């Protein structure tokens, strides 16, 4: 009997404790989950997701300090497949519009903003970030805000920015008799238009004739905005911001396509360059030196080469140097294209204010700097350039010198189509399937299929 009583007492006690613990647990810690979809695809850029997670941890510390009964859990994933599949995922989810499916935050290209904002998938951020303007966002480089503004509203918070460049194999330059001073002076000569694309081609010939390389000039195999750098180098334009129309500059496009066609005809660029796998391009320029120049390089390659190909930074400094994309002619200018990524808050999100707060915390100087260092990206905030960890990186400091010549992609919904068309035409002229003039016609056909007559053809 006594034993039975004891068992009954213990059972009641256990049930009471469990009930109390359960009810206390719920009351004390309501957890809000914020979900984010972020993209590399370059693997060193994983802090795009990690910084949001850290921001959540910091927010929880603050909440604990003030005794609030709420906690935030950040569920951020990082996409390392290609852009195409990431965008497909975003678009299909956004079109469904279910807040249980669509995350609260996207991190993607600033180029997605015109398409995604005009589709009603994003939340304008002007009011959401206004409370943090003085404390955080005023510190951002002002031109970055232009890249995330569409139809007069801000739709994204700049997450990073980079520069693109031409990489040259230093060892091959030395083998051709270039001195250290001459190599160091190359960037200035390009900037001041003393070294043009025609000189780059002549240099490629020298490397080939000296038997130094198999592939004097390589470029990215896949589509990307990089090819517009050559349109600008040949004195052209691709977007009229005032009229908000794409521009098809026949002369500059034809000169661009002729540049690629001639290089392929002469065997300076492999004629099947657009079918190369990316790793083959990276190995040729950064590891094996079988390529002489990579004319559509990006500063983040520096991180990829170290992380994914196991090469040391010292080896990279020893073997590579870089410049802007040289001018193609008198009317053209040396340049490089920047491609900011941005945090965006989704329209279906149930926690828009909280998402904006997390983005603000993830944009802290130390967090963004760890991303910049790991992924080889530039500063987005003025104070980062004085932040010790940032200034210690010689690479970032050197690459940042190219910033004044930065151009951006067009903030136009059909720019993607234009980009793909230009890449198609490059592939066409390199394989000899198209003449440069036919290539321009193909671009016009592709772009007008997308926007009708709403394009300026010069």
């Amino acid at each position, binding site marked *: 009997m006594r034993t039975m009583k004891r068992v009954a007492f213990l059972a009641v006690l256990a049930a009471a404790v469990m009930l109390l613990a359960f009810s206390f647990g719920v009351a004390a810690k309501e957890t809000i989950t914020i979900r984010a979809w972020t993209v590399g695809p370059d693997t060193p850029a994983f802090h795009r997701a990690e910084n949001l997670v850290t921001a959540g941890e910091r927010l929880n510390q603050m909440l604990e300090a003030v005794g609030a009964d709420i906690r935030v859990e950040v569920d951020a994933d990082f996409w390392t497949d290609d852009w195409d599949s990431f965008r*497909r995922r975003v678009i299909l989810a956004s079109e469904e519009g279910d807040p249980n499916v669509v995350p609260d935050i996207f991190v993607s290209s600033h180029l997605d903003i015109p398409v995604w904002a005009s589709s009603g998938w994003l939340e304008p951020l002007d009011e959401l970030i206004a409370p943090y303007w003085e404390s955080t966002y005023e510190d951002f480089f002002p031109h970055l805000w232009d890249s995330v503004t569409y139809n007069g509203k801000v739709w994204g918070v700049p997450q990073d920015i980079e520069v693109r460049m031409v990489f040259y194999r230093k060892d091959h330059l030395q083998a051709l008799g270039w001195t250290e001073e001459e190599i160091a002076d190359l960037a200035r000569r390009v900037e001041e238009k003393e070294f043009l694309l025609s000189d780059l081609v002549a240099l490629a010939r020298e490397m080939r004739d000296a038997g130094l390389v198999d592939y004097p000039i390589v470029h990215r195999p896949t589509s990307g905005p990089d090819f517009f750098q050559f349109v600008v180098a040949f004195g052209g334009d691709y977007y009229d911001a005032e009229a908000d129309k794409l521009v098809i500059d026949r002369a500059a496009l034809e000169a661009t396509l002729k540049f690629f066609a001639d290089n392929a005809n002469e065997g300076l660029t*492999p004629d*099947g360059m657009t*079918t190369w796998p990316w790793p*083959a391009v990276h*190995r040729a320029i950064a590891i094996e030196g079988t390529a002489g120049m990579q004319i559509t390089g990006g500063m983040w390659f520096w991180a990829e080469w170290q992380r994914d190909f196991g090469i040391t930074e010292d080896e990279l400094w020893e073997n590579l140097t870089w410049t802007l994309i040289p001018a193609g002619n008198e009317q053209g200018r040396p340049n490089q294209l920047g491609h900011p990524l941005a945090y965006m808050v989704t329209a279906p999100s149930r926690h828009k204010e909280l998402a904006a707060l997390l983005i603000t915390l993830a944009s802290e100087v130390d967090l963004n700097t760890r991303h910049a260092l790991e992924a080889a990206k530039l500063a987005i905030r003025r104070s980062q350039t004085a932040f010790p960890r940032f200034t210690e990186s010689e690479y970032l400091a050197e690459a940042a010198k190219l910033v004044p010549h930065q151009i951006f992609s067009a903030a136009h919904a059909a720019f993607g189509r234009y980009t793909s068309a230009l890449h198609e035409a490059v592939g066409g002229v390199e*394989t000899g*399937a198209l003449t440069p003039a036919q290539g321009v016609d193909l671009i016009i056909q592709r772009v007008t*299929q997308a926007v009708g007559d709403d394009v300026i053809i010069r």
Partner: protein
Amino acid sequence: MKRRGYGMVFLLLLPALLIILAFYVVPAVLTGTMSLTNMDHRLSWNFVGLQNYKQMLQDTILSRVFWNTIVYVFGTLLCFNVTFGLLLALATSYIAERQGERTSMFFRALWLLPRFTPPIVYGVIWLWILDPTRNGLLNGVLDFFGGKPVSWISKYPVQVIVLTNGVIGASFGMILFYSAITSISKEYNWAAAVDGAGWLQRIRYVTLPLIRWPLMFVTAYQTLSLLTSYEYILIITGGGPFYRTTVWSLYAYNEAFGGYYASYRFGYATALTLVLVVISMVASIIYWRVFRFREMMSEPKIEVI
């Protein structure tokens, strides 16, 4: 009684009918309707009449894509899916006769391996084999013998897609032909041998006529299958260089989902797909009539002991 019999037949057919309705008829009607819109990433049904079909007539790339498709489908079919499949079946049945069933099965299993491999892994293996630099398998071998690296995909694009698809496709024919060959009554071969027929003659006059139906079935089935397949091309060549390997189904896929910023021209892509449906239907009717499939369906054509 008769009515009840029909009811039973209908009931038994119902699951199949529902599946065909849900997975063929409804998508086909949706595709047809969608092809009359200019649907993009916003997935809105803006009807534009026959605009997509008019645009197809103006699309300068499409004739190139059409011929690529013909070469790809019939090249793969003739070189691999039927001919090479048949050779494998003959060889493995010969091995079975001489070395026993186990050895034969080993070789057949070997040829089935590509089919068991996930497409992306299979594609990546080929990308390594065909890598344009010395790091690729083929170029590594060339380099060993002092040769210069060859950009295989850009030099031999059509051969590459035929080969890479064919290595997978051959196993389907191999399995069917092998089972058909082993079902042939041995007396025929013995009789032919007694009459002095050699191995090749026995194949020509005994085996081939008796496996005529499986041969025709594989030809018809694989034609339709190849018309809509593009996944290995997408992984290995991406349709390049400059559309040299873009087949109709891949072109439709790219118009819907391809490109750096993705095209999302769902209206145009579905119009392209619908043309493929029509081509497949015409091909089916032609095969049905030319190969007299009605006869094949009516009674068993392979004699089994």
